[in-house]
């Protein structure tokens, strides 16, 4: 997904001189295509995320569209006040690119697990939050929306992902829905693969589900969610993020705001601080965020067709 991001950005930058790429000294073997193609618009600011985010606001105020690249934890938190008082307050087109949402950095350890970035970005008004499910969505979202006037947070996975069921579609403020069943699995972009695989396997057991992928987190896909949940009995949200403030909270807010009558089960990361670490697969499994965990959650609703 990182490589797709850079490849698409190189294309866009070929045609649009406003694009600049800043990195806080990360992106080895990833950012080189941009750095080589557009050396005059590529800056390694050093290990200085706060400076990077303000620097980007300064450049955006002069007409540029700066992309700020780092690991999702550092990208979203080290310069958080700089983002709030800079790009957000002045509504400048700064793009924070957080690599490795959730447990993508696995064994790198807890300092590298981005489990609250969505919550932090959701509370800032007028920020677009995009969490693509796969490389095709990265490409679509960037090409269609890179020039929007508001600031954005892009939450990207590290490795290449492909989910043909989504057909590469990405729509601003919309859900991408796959299948039809009485139980809805609402997954943040990075969990789309788990949700779609759980859906396939449940179907072989005769349990139909609807998978709704939230790649456009902000603006929230409110209309689509209301339409989806009005006609469902249960909804399970899954996210590689803390249970507070992310997609589960967004769905809960939608249910409350629209007085919907649907059973909501929120699944997120419940590990206590200081828990042991491991691979992304291991950490997801421990938090019930693997395929088995999602299938179990669906079965536990008891809403299984006879």
């Amino acid at each position, binding site marked *: 997904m990182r490589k797709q991001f850079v490849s698409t950005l190189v294309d866009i930058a070929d045609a649009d001189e406003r694009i*600049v790429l800043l990195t806080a000294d990360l992106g080895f073997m990833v950012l080189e295509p941009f750095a080589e193609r557009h050396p*005059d*618009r590529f*800056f390694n*600011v*050093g290990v*200085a995320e*706060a*400076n990077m*985010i*303000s*620097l*980007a*606001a*300064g*450049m*955006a*105020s*002069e*007409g*540029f569209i*700066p992309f700020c690249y780092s690991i999702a934890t550092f990208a979203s938190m080290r310069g958080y*006040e*700089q983002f709030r*008082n*800079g790009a957000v*307050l*002045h509504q400048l087109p700064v793009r924070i690119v957080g690599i490795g949402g959730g447990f993508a950095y696995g064994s790198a350890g807890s300092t590298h697990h981005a489990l609250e970035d969505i919550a932090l970005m959701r509370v800032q008004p007028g920020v677009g939050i995009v969490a693509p499910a796969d490389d095709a969505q990265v490409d679509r979202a960037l090409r269609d929306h890179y020039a929007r006037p508001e600031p954005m947070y892009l939450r990207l996975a590290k490795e290449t992902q492909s989910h043909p069921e989504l057909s590469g579609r990405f729509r601003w403020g919309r859900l991408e829905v796959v299948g039809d069943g009485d139980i809805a699995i609402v997954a943040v972009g990075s969990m789309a693969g788990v949700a779609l695989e759980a859906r396939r396997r449940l179907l072989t057991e005769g349990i139909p589900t609807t998978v709704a992928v939230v790649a456009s987190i902000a603006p929230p896909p409110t209309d689509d969610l209301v339409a989806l949940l009005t006609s469902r009995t249960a909804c399970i949200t899954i996210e590689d993020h803390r249970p507070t403030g992310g997609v589960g909270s967004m769905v809960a807010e939608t249910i409350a705001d629209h007085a919907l009558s649907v059973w909501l089960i929120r699944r997120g990361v419940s590990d206590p601080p200081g828990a042991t670490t491991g691979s992304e697969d291991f950490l997801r499994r421990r938090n019930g965020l693997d395929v088995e965990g999602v299938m179990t959650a669906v079965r536990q609703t008891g809403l299984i067709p006879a």
Partner: protein
Amino acid sequence: MTTISDAARSLNSALVRRSIIEQSRRAHVGHIGSALSITDILVALFSVVLDPSDDRFILSKGHAALAQYCVLEQLGVISREALDTYCGDDTHLGVHPEHALPGVLFSTGSLGHGASLGTGVALAKRVASKPGRVFVLISDAELNEGSVWEALMFAGHHKLDTLCLVLDNNGQQALAPTADVIDLGELPKAVESLGWSCERVNGHDVDALAAVLSTAGAGTPRFVIADTVAGKGVSFMEGQVKWHYLPVNDEQYAQALREIG
């Protein structure tokens, strides 16, 4: 090419100081010491140095914004009626500046942001091959913020010679003299070692300030230490830490105006 308006030419430190005391009194709001401290720096910048079309100014020490409002009013950028809304309701003139106000590029008030913002503006101008210099006014205590040093390192490394940081070196911060809180050591050596040129100037001598600030950078960003006195122009405020926050009473108000003249 700098084009200076008649209003800019007639900008006057005493009038700005008077206006600061009047507005502070009317609104019953402090931060007078900081506003008086930067008055002559702003007068030099806005009357002589800044090219209104190409140059940029960022007041990173946002708590001294009253001085900028008074300058903007004298320049005719904002009206007297607008100035009179200072710290009222439904206004863009708070204690700290809002970018919705004409003449304010960035909303500031959280220290340590302006140097990076200004560095970004200077970098943008370089990449876009646009003319113009960028002036950022920071406080000495603001150097406690690590982000300022991130900007100093970046701008020095990239030789952003259109960038000029002006340090309001009044030696005071909110609770005590800066030397007692965090001694800044040999600042010129520190910034010069990061690739900046550093000069020192009397921060209350408008002509000297104008001369130093008008000099374009040559290959390095410029760090100008303007030695100032907090509360400058009002004897009982000068060098007194308490005037970082206190508003004036009737008696102090009258005396302050008498002294400013």
